[in-house]
């Protein structure tokens, strides 16, 4: 008897429970950094009881490249390609947010045409990014086929980008004072062709997933992120809108020429995985609408950036934010009046979303964890920078 008592005491201090008659123990599992569903190199330390996840602890930093530090040693124009790597799935937004911050800091005017082109590029990039989300989300739930369809459509956008700036992923297209070159002849027509093709295709995706019973049971009421918690964690973008908060920087803090377009902001109701999915699906439709309006209203004129390769930004600081595909991305530039910025801080939306993960992942199944993680659409370079 004495031995059993001692064994129980040891077990209690080590967190082993005898409740079921057998000694059971929570076990720790490393999910990642090499795991198919952590979308890059996120490492989640899971404490598990069989299939049930007791707690999740995200470990980040596996993709840290010190971009912010590198920026301190480059001239303003040299930094633009580095911002591509900040969040490579929506790199147009990163180009834009940095260039916009520097433009505001040094009072550089840009033409109406380049504003319009920037809008078209960002919205195309938003569609491309949401397609990646849609594909990988399906993949993580075990539906492999939509992934291939999504990449097929994304390919078209990549081709459009390639003909504009010669790059398919890291564009370096938006420059301080405009864009790197004008649109090629006939590009507008090709862009409209894509939108014409793409808008009905979204229905096909919805047929495959949205109301599929298996898909619904996997996503409905899974990983609910309540409104106030989403605000507390400074979530933004589709994650915040999925929780029912109508907050979109394109409307609430307009940048560029977004105030000239007519579009809606889709929001979810409950804040579950399905809401975050459907918000992105609807956003793709709205983005198509914006592209159509922007291409039709594209003004004539110049758009090529004329800023000198090296210039001194006046002393001061500026924070610019804009609505990327994942939410609010921001760029904070401090200048001491030299050729190089004194400090550049980049804000990524995924970082905040990842921090909300432990809160909503208590007592769920491991399969749900995969679904929730995918619905946040976290991109690791944006988290680690």
């Amino acid at each position, binding site marked *: 008897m004495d031995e059993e008592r001692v064994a129980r005491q040891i077990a209690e201090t080590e967190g082993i429970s005898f409740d079921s008659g057998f000694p059971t123990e929570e*076990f720790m599992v490393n999910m990642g950094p090499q795991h198919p569903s952590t979308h890059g190199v996120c490492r989640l330390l899971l404490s598990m009881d069989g299939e049930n996840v007791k707690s999740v602890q995200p470990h980040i930093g596996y993709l840290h490249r010190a971009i912010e530090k590198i920026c301190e040693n480059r001239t303003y124009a040299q930094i633009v390609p580095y911002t591509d790597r900040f969040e490579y799935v929506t790199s147009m937004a990163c180009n834009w947010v940095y260039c916009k911050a520097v433009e505001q800091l040094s009072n550089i005017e840009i033409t109406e045409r380049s504003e319009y082109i920037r809008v078209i590029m960002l919205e195309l990039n938003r569609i491309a990014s949401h397609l990646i989300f849609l594909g990988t989300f399906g993949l993580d739930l075990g*539906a492999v*086929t939509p992934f291939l369809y999504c990449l097929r459509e994304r390919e078209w956008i990549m081709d459009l980008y390639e003909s504009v700036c010669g790059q398919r992923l890291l564009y370096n297209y938006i420059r301080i004072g405009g864009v790197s070159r004008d649109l090629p002849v006939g590009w507008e027509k090709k862009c409209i062709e894509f939108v014409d093709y793409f808008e009905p295709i979204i229905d096909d995706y919805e047929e495959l997933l949205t109301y599929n019973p*298996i898909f619904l049971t*996997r996503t409905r009421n899974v990983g609910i992120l309540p409104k106030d918690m989403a605000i507390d964690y400074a979530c933004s973008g589709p994650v915040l809108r999925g929780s029912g908060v109508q907050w979109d920087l394109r409307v609430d803090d307009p940048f560029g020429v977004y105030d000239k377009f007519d579009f809606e902001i889709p929001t979810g109701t409950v804040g579950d995985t399905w809401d975050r999915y459907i918000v992105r699906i609807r956003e793709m439709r709205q983005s198509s609408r914006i592209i159509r309006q922007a291409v039709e209203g594209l003004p004539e004129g110049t758009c090529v950036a004329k800023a000198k390769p090296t210039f001194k930004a006046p002393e001061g600081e500026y924070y610019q934010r804009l609505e990327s595909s994942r939410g609010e991305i921001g760029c904070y530039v401090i200048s001491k009046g030299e050729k190089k910025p004194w400090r550049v801080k980049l804000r990524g939306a995924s970082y905040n979303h990842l921090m909300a993960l432990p809160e909503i992942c208590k007592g769920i199944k*491991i*399969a749900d964890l995969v679904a929730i993680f995918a619905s946040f659409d976290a991109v690791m370079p944006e988290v680690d920078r």
Partner: protein
Amino acid sequence: MELHGIFEYFGSLIDKIGLPGFWEFLVDNTLIAAVLLGVLSVMALFLVWWERKVSAHMQDRLGPMRTGWHGVLQTLADGMKLLQKEDITPTGVDRGVFFWAPVIVFATTFLAYVPIPWGEKLIPADLNIGILYILAITTFTVIALLMAGWGSNNKWALLGGMRSAAQIISYEVPLTLSIMGVLIFAESLSMQSIVKSQAGFFDWYVFRQPLGFLIFLVASTAEVNRTPFDLPEAEQELVAGFNVEYSGMKFAMFFLAEFLNMFTASAIAVTLFFGGWNGPLLPSWVWFLGKTLVIVFILMWFRWTYPRLRVDHLMEFAWKWLLPLAFLNLILTGIGVYLWDALVGK
């Protein structure tokens, strides 16, 4: 062209040699086993290639194209590659259990083919307990998967092994019950007599047992671990599940066994519900293969269309839906047959 003529010819040759009884029996059965092994190995290679092709065309791709005509030799090339791989046994594994798991998976998969009728007289052994034998032998797979999960000394593998145990045992029950309906009609467990009792097109049991067939199809999809029930090896959740630590030929054994299990499930479905090898004009084995491949195609179709279920939904589905439905089916069939016999007579 009926194949059994060839086999009978060779059988009579062996008879003429005049070996003592025991040796004749041994040579006979070894030859049958060898033929079966050859056919099934080719079948597994073909199924892997076919799955890749089917998935590719569903996904707007071409799939393997380089090795042979439309990539037919792709699986062979992959198999050769896996054969040449170093056989890695990770440190910390339970060596015996780790080694025997793929062997048992492979062996039980082949053993299930003993009473499967490929054609009119083309059956390795027409056991009088045919279907019962198959159900018993295929359940061995779960032991092997559990061994693989446990022996690997890997948490992901253990989760996969546990999932497969829970899943296969749960779905075994509705699967068996759904077969019972057919057995009431056939009044025999022997596979050949089940096939012979559905000679005409409208004698196919799928028309008398539509619910039974649906339950069988769903349960056997779960039984062979395919999407939407592929939880034991859910790549996105458990990395690769029970076979995460396996490489080289051991991995290939799991892989080929999985495809053969799919073929087994389809072959049973055809035998029980679609008249087996019955069919006009063409040789019986062509009918059997054709029908089976159609069912295999349906299973592949499932896989490339649906997302995966969650583990608790999976259990709920088995115990709360399939099992009551299977019981209902069995009871209704029993009452129906009884009333038919009483009112109309045999």
